[in-house]
Each structure stands twice: as structure tokens, then as C-alpha cells.
């Protein structure tokens, strides 16, 4: 069952009053960084409200109250956090049942996974955006940096290791773009067989299914990278 998404608030829309004690996520329906957070919130069964923001026409109150360079934003009473990895880690720490942390707890494993996210994932994500925007050399960069992800899967079935876990959630939103909107020929070269298999398996995983966007809807949103016009609410 997919998440219910309210309309995206834009300039002129009033500030939705906060509810004391309630966790609020300022989000955007197709934002991959927001999806990272939503997956961890779903996995921990956290009760929260979504306030969607039109990122190209933000309400003035949003820019004044939340002057961060990172998105999404989490708020609960006096608690205020911004940035997908910062929030994901906070949720995992605060809302996990004992012994059920999603983020690896062994110091070295955690370091290894975080290193993968900071280095390899960041570069692959950048290459995917270059592909969406048809920047020069995007195919070459995709081959290199998405290729690095294929290399990781040569050793392990999942980015997190033997089983699907934190690292897989943290990269899924961008890898789900492959196959859409002009970066489909990254996959169709047949070079990334492990990634293709991973994508099929990950798309069926319970938490990912809860937060995923239907391919045809995602494809429609991604046309914005080519046309320059994004519609945030056409699915609502």
C-alpha cells in the first residue's frame, strides 16, 4: 500500500499549524532524498504527517522557518533536523525496537557502509542526475560510477551484504530511475546484470513497496528534467 500524499504547498499557501508532539516531515512526493527517510519511518512504523512542498515555488514561511540547504526536514515540537542521512540515522536510533537497528552497529561495518554511501553512492547519484539532464559525458560517467555499484554486487547479493538492508534503502530511490527517461540505455547495454537483478528483488521488498512510486507515474515526473517543467501534483 503506497503512501498517501497531500498536495504540494507553494508560495501563498498558509502555514499548516503544528500539532503538539506530532512528528512532521516536510517532503516532496518524488524526492529521492525524502524517500530515504520515508523508508526508515515505514520500517520503524512511526506515526507522522507529511507536508509536501513545491520545491520550485516554496512558501515564504518554509524558507523563513527552515533556512537549511538540505531536504527533507523533520520537525517535532522543538526538534528540527534536515538532510536525509542525518534524519534516517536519528529515526533508526530513536524508534527501533531493541536489537532491531537497521543501520549496522558494528563500528567497522557501519564505517564501511557509510563510506560506501558517502563515496560510491554520491558519485553514482551524480552520474544518474547527469543522465537525466543529458549533460555531456553522462554515458561515460554512468558507466564508471554506476559500474562501481555493479562491482559491489559482484561480491555481495545486496549493498548491505547478504541481506537487503540500510545501504540498499539509501540507494534505491536513484537506482529506480534507471529504465526511465533516457537513462534506460544504461541498463539495456546488458552490462549491469547484477544491478538489474537487484532492482527486481528490491522493488518487491515490503518497505520499498510501501514508499515506492508507480513506474509510469515516476516516468511522467522525470520528463520534467527534459522539458524543464515539473508538475508535483499530477498524481494527486
Amino acid at each position, binding site marked *: 500500500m503506497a503512501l498517501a500524499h497531500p498536495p504540494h504547498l507553494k508560495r501563498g499557501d498558509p502555514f499548516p499549524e503544528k500539532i503538539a508532539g506530532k512528528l512532521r516531515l516536510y517532503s516532496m512526493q518524488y524526492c529521492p532524498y525524502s524517500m530515504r527517510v520515508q523508508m526508515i519511518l515505514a520500517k520503524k512504523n512511526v506515526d507522522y504527517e507529511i507536508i509536501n512542498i513545491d520545491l520550485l515555488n516554496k512558501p515564504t514561511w518554509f524558507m523563513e522557518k527552515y533556512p537549511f*540547504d*538540505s531536504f527533507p526536514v523533520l520537525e517535532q515540537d522543538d526538534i528540527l533536523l*534536515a*538532510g536525509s542521512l*542525518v534524519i534516517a*540515522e*536519528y529515526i533508526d536510533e530513536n524508534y527501533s525496537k531493541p536489537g532491531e537497528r537497521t543501520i549496522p552497529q558494528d563500528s567497522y561495518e557501519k564505517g564501511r557502509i557509510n*563510506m560506501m554511501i558517502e*563515496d560510491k553512492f554520491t558519485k553514482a547519484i551524480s552520474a544518474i542526475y547527469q543522465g537525466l539532464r543529458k549533460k555531456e559525458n553522462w554515458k561515460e560517467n554512468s558507466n564508471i560510477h554506476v559500474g*562501481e555499484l555493479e562491482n559491489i554486487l559482484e561480491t555481495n547479493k545486496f549493498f548491505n551484504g547478504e541481506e537487503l538492508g540500510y545501504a540498499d534503502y539509501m540507494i534505491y530511490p536513484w537506482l529506480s530511475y534507471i529504465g526511465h527517461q533516457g537513462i534506460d540505455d544504461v541498463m539495456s547495454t546488458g552490462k549491469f546484470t547484477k544491478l538489474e537483478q537487484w532492482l527486481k528483488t528490491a522493488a518487491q521488498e515490503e518497505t520499498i513497496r510501501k514508499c515506492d512510486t508507480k513506474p509510469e507515474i515516476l516516468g511522467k515526473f522525470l520528463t520534467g528534467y527534459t522539458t524543464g517543467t515539473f508538475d508535483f501534483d499530477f498524481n494527486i
Partner: protein
Amino acid sequence: MSPPRHMTNEDPFPEKTKGKLRFYNMRYCPYALRARLMLTLKEVNFETINIHLRKKPEWFLEKFSAGTVPVIEIDEKILGESLVIAEYIDEVYSKPGEQIVPKDPYERARARMLISNLFPKVISAVYQRLKKEENWKVDFYKYFDKIEKILAEKNFFAGDVLGYADYMIWPWMRYFGPHCVDDALTEGRFPNLERWLTTMKKDPVVVKCAIPPNILAKFAEAYVTREFVYDLE
């Protein structure tokens, strides 16, 4: 005694000592200094291999394909990325109760926000000045006004006491002063930052890891000339 030379592709792989932490460094790299500060703070028994970043040894790239420093290696374990390494060292090598990364989840998240979201912008502004880019003052004042405001409200980026966030930004603040960047903290615009700089310079860990100011300034010339020279000491 001079520090070890920066190893190039012509140098053979220096054999490891089993069980000993090896730190791959570059003497003037600010990211690597983050790791060095943590290793020094925690009194880790480690050895340093300096890497020539323009002539990287193959054996280094085989271990860590990104080819950046810092990297730490303990037997089979290899970690790169300065903040990943800093947190690892704090977790594994701290005496009980002496971790400097905040323990409270919200405090830690706020520290991460500062270090991962705001500090990179501050760092970028410092590089613009080091490279003497034309409009360096725009971003510089924008982001330095923000950190000045933080230091107006508390003694340190970490709070009342010098801590993790302070060490993580120090490597880029070393340049300010008559030895190198003498035109940025001007007109009394950043009195709290100047106070913080004075205190940081006296911190024992900072002192232990200090590069002589004239050497640092000499290295920094490369940001303009693009001719990097590594073995300056």
C-alpha cells in the same frame, strides 16, 4: 627530524606491521588532518604513510580506488572518508565516557547537520579565497556570518566545551592570520571567530598536529598556481 616523504608510484609498498593502525596521509591535506586530530586525541598507536597526491602509488589505489586521503588500515580493515574515519576512531578508541561525538541521538544529529550541511559551504568559501577567485567575498561573508552567529551564542561549535565539531572544521581555519589569509577576518566583523581561533591554536591536540605556519602558507600557494609541492619540510 623531517616527516616521512610523500610516497609516489616509484616507491615500493611499505610493509605493514600486524595489528598496527596505518594512517595514509598528506601533510597539508585538511581532510586528512581531521583523522590525524582524532588519532592524536585518542592516543592511538599508529604509523603514518604520506601519499603524493599527484603521483599516487598503484598499491595505494588498489587498496582504496577513490585515491583520496585520509585512509586508515588495520590488518584487513580499510576505511576512507574523513568523517567516517573520525567517528570510527571516536567509537573504537575512546576511553569509557570520553567520546567526543555526542551520545544523545538528537545532539549527534544536530552536530552532523552542522558538519555535513553547513561546514562544506564554509569550506568551499575558504577554498574560493585560497584560490583567490574573483567573487570570493560573496560566499565568504554569507557563510562566515552564519558561523560567527553560532559562536556568538556558544563558546565552541560543539557547545560549552571544545569538541567534535570544532576539530572537524579546524583544518580550514588554520589559514587565517598574518602568515597566510590576512584579508578575510577584517574590520572586526568576526570577533567571536577570532576568539575561537585564539583558543583553538592553544589546544594541545591542535598543537601536536600543527604544521609550521610558513610551510602551510607555502603549500597554500599551490591553490593559485596549481603547482602542488608536497615535501616542504
